[in-house]
């Protein structure tokens, strides 16, 4: 009869993995939520102090919530961070695109861009993610995982 003890990953190793994952996600978010909008607003000449402040503030919130969500995956704080992250991302996309209507002014010319269907598609990703997180959390708490020891004999 062989009794096999469950493999336990070292807690430090788990957290090291999560830190790397968080770093990668923060880098991706930096490109999507900081560099891309900033480049767009500078290139189109729409950049203002308010927009720059909004980009920085929202990016810091997104980065903070991403780190919190990934480091505390198993904790309720991690779940709350994931939901908060989705809300902040959706809100940020809506605010930074001015509700899907952008107006560019060039010496006597006015160009108005309206891209509401695209905006809703962009916002759908974080909003679906919120629902996913809630469904997963509810499912996880209602059916607690059970660790069993298989005994061969």
């Amino acid at each position: 009869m062989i009794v096999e003890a469950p493999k336990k990953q070292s807690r430090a190793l788990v957290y090291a993995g999560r830190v790397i994952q968080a770093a990668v996600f923060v880098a991706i978010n930096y490109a999507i939520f900081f560099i891309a909008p900033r480049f767009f607003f500078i290139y189109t000449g729409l950049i203002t102090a308010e927009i720059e402040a909004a980009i920085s503030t929202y990016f810091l919130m997104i980065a903070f919530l991403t780190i919190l969500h990934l480091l505390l995956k198993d904790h309720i704080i991690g779940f709350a961070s994931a939901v908060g992250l989705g809300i902040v991302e959706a809100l940020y996309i809506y605010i930074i695109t001015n509700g899907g209507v952008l107006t560019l002014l060039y010496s006597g010319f006015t160009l108005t861009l309206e891209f509401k269907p695209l905006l809703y598609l962009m916002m759908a990703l974080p909003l679906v993610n919120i629902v996913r997180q809630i469904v997963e959390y509810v499912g996880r708490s209602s059916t607690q995982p059970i660790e069993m020891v298989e005994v061969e004999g």
Partner: protein
Amino acid sequence: MVKVRQPLISTGFRPLTLGLGITLLLTLITIAYSAYENVSYVFEGFGVGEGMPHLNVNGTHLTISNLTLANRGVYPLSIALSGWAMIGDVDLGSASTGEIIIPPKTQKQINLTLSINLTKAYTDYNLLKTILFNTTVAAFKIKANFGFQPFVAASFESGFSRNIGAALDGLTFRLRSVEPLNETHIKANIEVEFTNRSPLVVSGVLHSSLSSARQRDLQYAAAPLDVFAQPHQHYLALLTFMLPKGELVSGAWYVLELKFETFGHVYEWRSALGV
């Protein structure tokens, strides 16, 4: 170790998120591609003078013709051109092509003719007064609505303005001649001169009276003068006054009371007349 399986609804969210992400990415790429292709086509064409619209403004029409647009993108390109002409707050006319859909890989020629109804300016007293005596600015606005259906709609608005000269530009009254009529009266011929620098036809009746220098509240009226001047026409006519001898004193200045009846409005003003 036995793990509890996630509910089906939960596992279904992953492909949904992935699908949405791929859809968004593909949409953005295809829109960017279509925008690049169409914008580069427009600039290439305009660079060699191909598809360039001809813009023509004459007195009564603003015409944009031979604007050729090709859709080299992957989405149907919708385009609508509209134009307005205004003087002050008065709308002189507007026109629109309506929505034109250019399917992918096809091209269409677009023309827009805007009729400018200058007579609308006659309905506004203050505006007509300004047009008669001052240079005014006519504003023309052009708006192009276009978009890649159904994702992006854009509108491009621009305008230009043209100065419209005064209809009674350089209006002057000058004593041309004084002739004896009989023993008691003289005939004074006063020259009326102006240039119609507006695109409007000046048509009306000018009533004039000369205040007596010797007797208060006494005025001498001239026969009403029918004024008609085509755009850019130099107008010259004579007002004839029958005055008692000694009424006109050389070197003196007199006040001419003037009334101009045109398009149902009457404009009254005074002008100085040197003798």
